[in-house]
């Protein structure tokens, strides 16, 4: 389905994950973050989101929470403070990439 986020028409799934990463920009990301209860995106937030997004664009799959903790420069505990409940899922959503798979 199509939604308008921060003035941009984007393809999203039922949970609001962007289906076309190329439709994303930072304003779109910031608005998704606000909708998820993150009022202000700090540099740390962006560091994680961009790591997530770049990894997805390079490899075609989003990193796991463990890889995120080891390689993004932000330890897992802090990831949970930045992105409550599900850091990998939320960072993917804000970063405009499809929902990470493997939750079956």
């Amino acid at each position: 389905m199509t939604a308008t986020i921060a003035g941009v028409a984007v393809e999203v799934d039922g949970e609001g994950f962007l289906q076309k990463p190329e439709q994303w920009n930072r304003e779109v990301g910031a608005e998704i973050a606000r909708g998820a209860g993150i009022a202000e995106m700090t540099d740390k937030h962006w560091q994680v989101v961009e790591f997530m997004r770049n990894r997805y664009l390079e490899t075609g799959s989003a990193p796991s929470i463990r890889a995120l903790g080891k390689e993004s420069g932000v330890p897992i505990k802090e990831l949970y403070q930045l992105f409550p409940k599900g850091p990998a899922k939320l960072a993917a959503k804000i970063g405009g990439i499809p929902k990470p798979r493997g939750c079956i």
Partner: protein
Amino acid sequence: MKRILILGAGTAGTIMANRLRKLYKREMRAGALEITIVDQDDRHIYQPGLLFVPFGIYSPDDCVKPRRPQVKGRVRYVTGAIDRVEADEDRVYLEGGKTLDYDILIVATGTEIAPHETDGLTGPGWNEKMFDFYTLEGATRLAEALEKWEGGRLVLNIVEMPIKCPIAPLEFVFLADWYFTKKGMRDKVQIALATPLDGAFTRPIASKAFGDLMERKGIELVPDFNAGEVDGPEGKLKSWDEREVDFDLLVSIPLHMGAGYVSRSPGLGDDMNFVLTDPNTLQAKRKENIFALGDATNVPTSKAGSVAHFEAEVLEQNVRRYMEGEPLEEAFDGHANCFIETGHGKAVLIDFNYEVEPLPGKFPFPGVGPLALLKETRFNHWGKLFFKWMYWHMLLPGYDIPAVPPRMSMRGKQRGDLPKLERHAVLGGSPNSSDNGDESSKVA
């Protein structure tokens, strides 16, 4: 001569070897095709049986047979640990330097638990008050511990998804409820399930049904719990967002990872060592002559033996198409089919795929069954026990299961108003279990 190399002689690899040797019987006899299978040991574990070991229903010996006799015919069996796959060379390196060249590679090396990935889990208290049951050793030690346990708080924790057999945690807590009831000490035991999921299961309808069942059995659900650390001596399980769950006895389902050699094989797997695989054709992303099936893949369906079986039926034909230069068929739909032991001699059956979540109804024959979907019956329990025979005598040898094709069928499944799990349902079922013919659609 064409060479097919299969990595792993577990459920998926064994089924695949047996199907392909039947498909290519003539070519193999003529020396035009060779099938080789590699595994590091000769111990095939009937993994669904591990659930029954902690409760004394199966002994460890009931779950093990040698691997080699399960792979029949002219298939060559090589014992060795895999060092890495060099896809550019079409070559697999074994530890010790031996190499195996292939024209087609099929990866079926499954997944294993990685308890050391959770801080404290393998520290003080491991195998004393903290156990796993996903290994034969773990399940055996847990059986001894449960037998002499005097009661307290039993916590089952799923560290992270995906796990093998995602319904096993539910079965474990249901069987624990039955086990302590039978021992006359249920009142001395609290049972809790701490899970990273937001409910009892991954899909909404089944999650609701199993959530209700847990409540009726007095089992506590701790949802959205992402375990980060365990303190054995203090008996505390701690989440990344700093919540705590107390335990006297912890049964952990640790993090799962693909086989270690995948990380040494450039481009083959993801961060968790699961092989990057097309979910519909089962071709690996790495190179066109590599395929993968079973728990080893990253495809978004359950890691379960039934899935490996359905995948094998599809992959057999895609391997043939690849050999004959035909386009692959996107034939795999994520079909999974699982019996869920609920204790007291009953079980639930679920049947689902990538798109369709587990629904109530009858299986495999609409309106008749004899198995009931998403509902507790004694007949389902017998089905589960019979499955062990089927596993060794039908699944591993690579036979199709009558009336159960690889593609999931909507026949006999109900959408719309969904019945609750009937605690006292018996074979024959409630009015809710009749077939809803209007919703059925035929899938050839």
